[in-house]
């Protein structure tokens, strides 16, 4: 690109130059408080967001309170067996309707004046009701409902009443979710207690990019690949073994609507060998090989990562432009061979956690990037060009960043030239 063209681009949030194979995003996108406000309105209040797994609210009356996006929700399985989500806010004075994190209840009573709601969100009764006029209609004071849909046990919510349904939103990710979840078909799955919850001083998009990016593995995660894997796991794999184009399956694909999937060689030995014959019968040899020998890391726009290996479900939400809150759960078969369970959890804990051999170093790097973003000139750009003109992008290319950031730009209602 010559200098005149470069100048014309100077105010754009994203430069997506397919001719030269350059993809840049303004550094300000990661640290501007106005962008944070726009993201809340245009992205987190419009997209379907992963909220919970059905096993967490399995029986009638089971409930969870959890912040999803910018709000705390009360998610409850009603006495009628239906899953619903509500704002956890009393219709009377705005008190918190349910102050527990989870449990089983027949009604929810706001602490402030004892307004009481059913598990289906209806106002069941008010304390000392004789002073209310006869026209006071309890049906007009149900909890504010929030859209909820689930796909194969994964519960998503959406704050936009006009948005498309969940399946349409998930687009090509449906097929990948099927591949991951088919492996547990007919098995009761559960979310284990002890989800990792932590915050970091970095923008949420940085954590999303980092969660999928294999390019940083060789530099940031030397200790995991050169020390932990060979010395503790007894596995020795090079960059090429893991991310190289050793078969047609290894690579990253655009799944539409900002979602993407990266497929890499599986390196943990946590697969139940007896499953091979079962799957071969069910899915054929080729798909079985793919299930057994490869891991899929799925990015669901805007803020969810599903890593098949453990499996892990991770969400991240911005608390401000500079602070991200991340939660990582593990979803496992309720009943399984203790050795396989132990292998899963060790795999998870040894890399993903705040005490793992990977995550602390990611946080270190991301927090420095964030600080530096604030110090860059206002018109500075960061780069996600890697692999841009390749026919196939590998996991250590940056297609997934481009897919996510293009959708981010498409969703944000910002004037093109806005600085």
């Amino acid at each position, binding site marked *: 690109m010559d200098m005149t063209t470069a100048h014309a681009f100077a105010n754009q949030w994203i430069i997506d130059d397919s001719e030269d194979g350059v993809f840049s995003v303004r550094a300000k996108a990661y640290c501007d408080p106005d962008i944070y406000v726009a993201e809340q309105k245009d992205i987190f209040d419009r997209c379907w967001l992963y909220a919970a797994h059905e096993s967490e609210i399995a029986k009638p009356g089971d409930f969870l309170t959890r912040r999803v996006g910018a709000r705390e929700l009360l998610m409850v399985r009603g006495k009628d067996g239906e899953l619903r989500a509500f704002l956890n806010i009393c219709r009377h004075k705005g008190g918190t309707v349910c102050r527990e994190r989870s449990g089983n209840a027949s009604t929810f009573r706001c602490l402030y004046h004892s307004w009481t709601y059913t598990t289906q969100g209806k106002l069941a009764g008010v304390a000392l009701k004789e002073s209310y006029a006869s026209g006071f209609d309890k049906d007009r004071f149900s909890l504010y409902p929030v859209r909820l849909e689930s796909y194969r046990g994964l519960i998503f919510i959406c704050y936009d009443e006009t948005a498309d349904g969940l399946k349409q939103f998930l687009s090509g990710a449906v097929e990948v979710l099927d591949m991951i979840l088919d492996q547990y078909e007919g098995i009761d799955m559960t979310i284990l*207690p002890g989800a990792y*919850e*932590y915050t970091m001083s970095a923008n949420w998009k940085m954590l999303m990019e980092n969660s999928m990016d294999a390019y940083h593995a060789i530099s940031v995660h030397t200790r995991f690949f050169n020390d932990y894997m060979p010395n503790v796991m007894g596995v020795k794999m090079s960059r090429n073994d893991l991310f190289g184009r050793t078969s047609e399956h290894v690579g990253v694909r655009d799944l539409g609507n900002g979602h993407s999937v990266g497929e890499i060689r599986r390196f943990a030995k946590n697969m139940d060998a007896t499953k091979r014959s079962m799957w071969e019968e069910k899915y054929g040899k080729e798909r079985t090989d793919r299930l057994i020998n490869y891991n899929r890391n799925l990015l669901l726009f805007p803020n969810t990562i599903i890593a098949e290996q453990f499996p892990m479900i991770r969400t991240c939400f911005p608390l401000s432009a500079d602070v991200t809150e991340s939660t990582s759960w593990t979803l496992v078969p309720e009943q399984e061979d203790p050795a396989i369970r132990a292998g899963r959890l060790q795999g*998870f804990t040894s890399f993903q956690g705040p005490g793992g051999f990977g995550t602390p170093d990611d946080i*270190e790097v991301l927090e420095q990037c964030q600080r530096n973003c604030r110090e860059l000139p206002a018109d500075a750009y960061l780069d996600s060009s890697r692999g841009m003109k390749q026919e196939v992008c590998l996991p250590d290319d940056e297609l997934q960043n481009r897919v996510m950031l293009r959708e981010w730009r498409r969703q944000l209602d910002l004037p093109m030239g806005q600085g």
Partner: protein
Amino acid sequence: MSQDAALTIHLRAEIEEFLYMEAELLDEWRLDEWLELFEEGAISQVLPLRDPTLGTDDSLYLIDDDYVRLKSRVQQLLNGTTYSENPFSKLRRLVSNVRAVAESPMVVRARCNFMVHRSRRGKITQYVGQCRYRLLRKGDSFRITERVVQLDQDNLSQGHLGFIL
């Protein structure tokens, strides 16, 4: 003072001496010496923040190191590849409320409360909790066979456990 009370105080003094020495090694990043305090086959864990009563099979521990992983962790911290602790943070820990019970002539169960103050590039994080030990008498000191940390916080706000708590 009864003989029992005198023995309790004597045991506590022995344990305090050991825990203060351990704290010093950790604060000063003398991790190879710290590792020598462990018996081979020892475990070192950090419990889940919200459900600290569950076992390692039924919940996600923050850290669940057997001796091999613990050794690897120390090695990775000392060889400079743990970038989150390279350069090392400044650490200072306060140890108090020490309790100790002799389970047998050779085995002591001990616990203490702690506060770890961690300072790194102008950012300060604090960790408060309890540490529980199973200790084996070795000569005039002890060897650790179990070291289990329970943090008293809801989430790891602005903190991670790349160092040794």
